[in-house]
């Protein structure tokens, strides 16, 4: 049921079975990165922070809804669905990769759409959950030689069987300078996730964007920050405010908090 608000911005569910979540607009997302401060005798502040910032979403489901709207959420909260994944569609259209898989920390910086980023380490492997029968665009910037092999993206079924392999290669001209490479894949009906492996040491600004519909993407090119979606979440038991009870199911307002758990980029 797509409902009044059109295609939903959030999908929730186990691997290979993501379902739309009907929610109202204004979904807040907060992130909490563990940090620690040290202020020296001279007043200099040094800050230490953790490598990741786990996020939290507060969703309010469509108001005055029947329990059918909340059955997925309740099942997930009880643990009946096993490991639950949340796909944030707005974030997926930007960049589905976790931030640590979009660029590295050391090395000569490469200008990626105006942003100077360090290249990824050769041998970086990231895993991304994908929807079946959907188009995705993998892009990045590289200073590798012409037509050099950069890596590959392998789509797989929920059981781990390979469906298709797409190689990523540097453009055929402009070797040695920073230029963008891009590759569009359309997943089959059995695809659940993909493994993206980068073998080159001079790739930065990696991006995996989900199509808006068909093969139309939200932008033509460029780099956006990694959003790590889909990610595993803990579904905190939903709150219900009962509004009306007549013949049939009660109608209530449901709200739920989803907390990111586990580590993005690995299954």
């Amino acid at each position, binding site marked *: 049921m797509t409902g009044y608000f059109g295609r939903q911005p959030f999908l929730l569910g186990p691997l290979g079975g993501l379902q739309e979540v009907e929610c109202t607009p204004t979904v807040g997302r907060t992130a909490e*990165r*563990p*940090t*620690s401060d*040290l*202020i*020296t*005798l*001279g007043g*200099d*502040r*040094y*800050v*230490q*922070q*953790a*490598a990741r910032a786990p996020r939290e979403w507060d969703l309010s489901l469509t108001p005055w809804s029947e329990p059918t709207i909340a059955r997925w959420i309740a099942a997930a909260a009880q643990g009946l669905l096993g490991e639950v994944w949340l796909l944030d569609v707005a974030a997926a259209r930007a960049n589905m990769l976790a931030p640590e898989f979009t660029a590295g*920390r*050391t090395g000569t910086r490469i200008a990626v759409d105006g942003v100077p980023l360090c290249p990824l380490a050769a041998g970086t492997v990231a895993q991304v959950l994908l929807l079946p029968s959907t188009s995705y665009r993998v892009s990045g910037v590289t200073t590798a030689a012409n037509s050099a092999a950069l890596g590959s993206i392998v789509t797989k079924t929920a059981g781990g069987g390979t469906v298709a392999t797409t190689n990523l290669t540097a453009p055929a001209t402009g070797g040695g300078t920073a230029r963008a490479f891009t590759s569009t894949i359309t997943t089959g009906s059995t695809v659940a996730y993909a493994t993206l492996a980068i073998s080159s040491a001079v790739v930065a600004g990696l991006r995996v964007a989900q199509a808006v519909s068909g093969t139309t993407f939200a932008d033509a090119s460029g780099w956006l920050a990694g959003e790590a979606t889909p990610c595993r979440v803990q579904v905190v038991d939903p709150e219900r405010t009962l509004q009306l009870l007549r013949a049939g199911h009660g109608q209530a307002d449901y709200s739920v908090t989803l907390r990111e758990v586990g580590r993005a980029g690995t299954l």
Partner: protein
Amino acid sequence: MGAVSEPQATISADTGAGATPLEVTGWEVSRDLTGGALPGQVRAVSGFSVGTGRVRFRQGDGATPWRGGPVKPGQACAIDAAADVTETAAAVARMRIRAIGAGSALSTERTADIEDQVDGLRAPVQIPPTLAPRDPVGSPSIDAAWAIDRAVRQAGFRMTAEPVPSAIFAAHRCGSTLAEVSSWVDMTGAAQWDTDLDGRIYAAGTRADTYRMTSQVEVGGSFYITMTIANLASPPLAQMYFVLANGPGVALFRIQPTSIWISMATGSTTGPIASVPIALGPSGQVQMQVERLSATQWRFRARTDPAAAWSSWATPAAGDSRPEPVDFFWMDGPLRGVQIHTADDPRVWLPNPTARIAAANSPLSAVIVDGATPAWDLAQQVAGSTLGALWIDEAGSAVFRNRDQIRGLGTAAPASVVAESSVEDLPWSISSDDVADRVEVSYTPSDVQSVTNYSLTVWQSTDVVAIGAGKTVTIYAELEDAVAFDLASWLPVWDTTTAPAGRWSRWAASTQRDGGGAQPPSTALTVSSTLVSPSRIRLRITNNTAGTLYTAGADGTSQITIRANVVVRPSEAVTLATGKSAELALNPLQVSLGAWVQDGDVAQSVLSWLWGAVSAPLPVLDQVRVVPDLSIRLGSIRTLRDPSITGLVAKVLVVGTILTGAPGSLVQTLRLAVLDVLEGDLAALFDLRSLATEANVATYYTSLGAATEGDLATLLPAAALA
């Protein structure tokens, strides 16, 4: 470290399938140098530290916390950390899990207590009674660090590899040039031990030792020589000269860190050289394969890694003809862990030595150790007596630093820590408890009596023993405080032709208890004596006659006398003192160095050290939280500067470290002992300022702004450490 950093830590446990990384929620490791019997500010002295820690990790393999998971007590646990993601990880701990527990049945979080592994060091130490050879000027040539090396070696903390089964010569040369395999023959040159750039002891000075291998090398034979070259800034040449028993040389090897040369003996000199370049790895080990091609030529090739290829052969020009087998050689130079072996044994390689033992700078004439002392206690005693510090470091090695290193003497200007930009706060305390107005140091030299004619009496029996016909009796002779070396053979008391009376071990026998009766034949008793422990001799007396014999002499008293060539006894303890006289002193400090300091000069230097440390109170800075710098470890020396708030400029020794890791946080807290400015520092200052005469010095003092001597006390140390 940048102003915003991302600390990293990797913690793994050896679950039997290799190092398995753990998902850790928090960890902490703390290390401390405790001061034993000495006051707080000299904490570094007789330091002994076993680090402990705690790791909280997730073991999500099931609901019951008490079901043994893959991570169990007894497994090795390694922690590496970096203050920022762009820095290389440094070792923080190589410890063992002592206990694992969980706070709740519902929790998947486990807490493991970890501790440095020193179990092997609780076993009794095995050091045989050893007499130090004396160099031509009479100085004994064993350094007290040798005892520490022997003690920690038995738990696996080694600077040199153990002798391999095919070794025909092996000498560790870590405090003693005596050989483990084969025999030491003689030495020339002055005995001296020093510490190299890695903090390890090596044989310094002009000494050369002669050894005799356990088997000879014939023409056509081949062997391997494996050795470690000490890491020095300008290393002296090391030599190995193979010679014949009656003197003439055969083949000379010269060893340097960049190349090894060989030349054959020609007349009284050696001929042209053939050489091989070598590139030493971090462990400093190099191996040579040597072949005796003919009576006139040898050749060799070298490698510095068992997996690396051999160099090409170096074949020198032919020398004099020496067809005889060779088993003598002399050796000098900064070589450690030298082994000559006949088979290519991989166990001779030690790429990662697990000990760093400096020279204790305390020469010993004899080492006599009670066999029941645990190894760790012994190593601590030696460290404490020589005022060094002994601890297990962050990489799991045993580290011993001598008293000079602990005071920062001889280190190039230590790195600075500026309080304003690197330290959170400087809480300090000074106590008058830590001040002594009189220091007494007592040491026990060894009284070594040495003869060559077996005339030193070691023990005399008091009771008469009856031995039946054909029977053997065993008696244990307990020596009080003495150790005998080179026991004499046995003669009957009445035999004065083989040796004069008063020499050799003697036995007497008579057929009657009161000593009367016919004198039994000289073969009536067979006596043998063996040293079973440093102060215990086992006598076996066998009666070879057909009648009962009594060990009584003609006067009816027992006449069994054991004699030896060398007897070592502890002499009277000598006491040195400084400060107020004994009657007036209110807070005296008495330190007994025992038998680990036997030299008066060393005792005097220990006394000056202690006096400098306790005569005036020096602050201890505790709970100093610094911007994390993992190069600051236990035992590090830094110059702490605080120009703006306390005006402190001082050399400090890190006597305690606590590292705590949590999500997004790495906290390093130190305990620092302020060290005195030493004469060495002032000497370096005068050198730097080219102050050669008293007039120069006076001008300099005035330029510092000193009007009185009191001003100098504050201005000069600051200038020295600037």
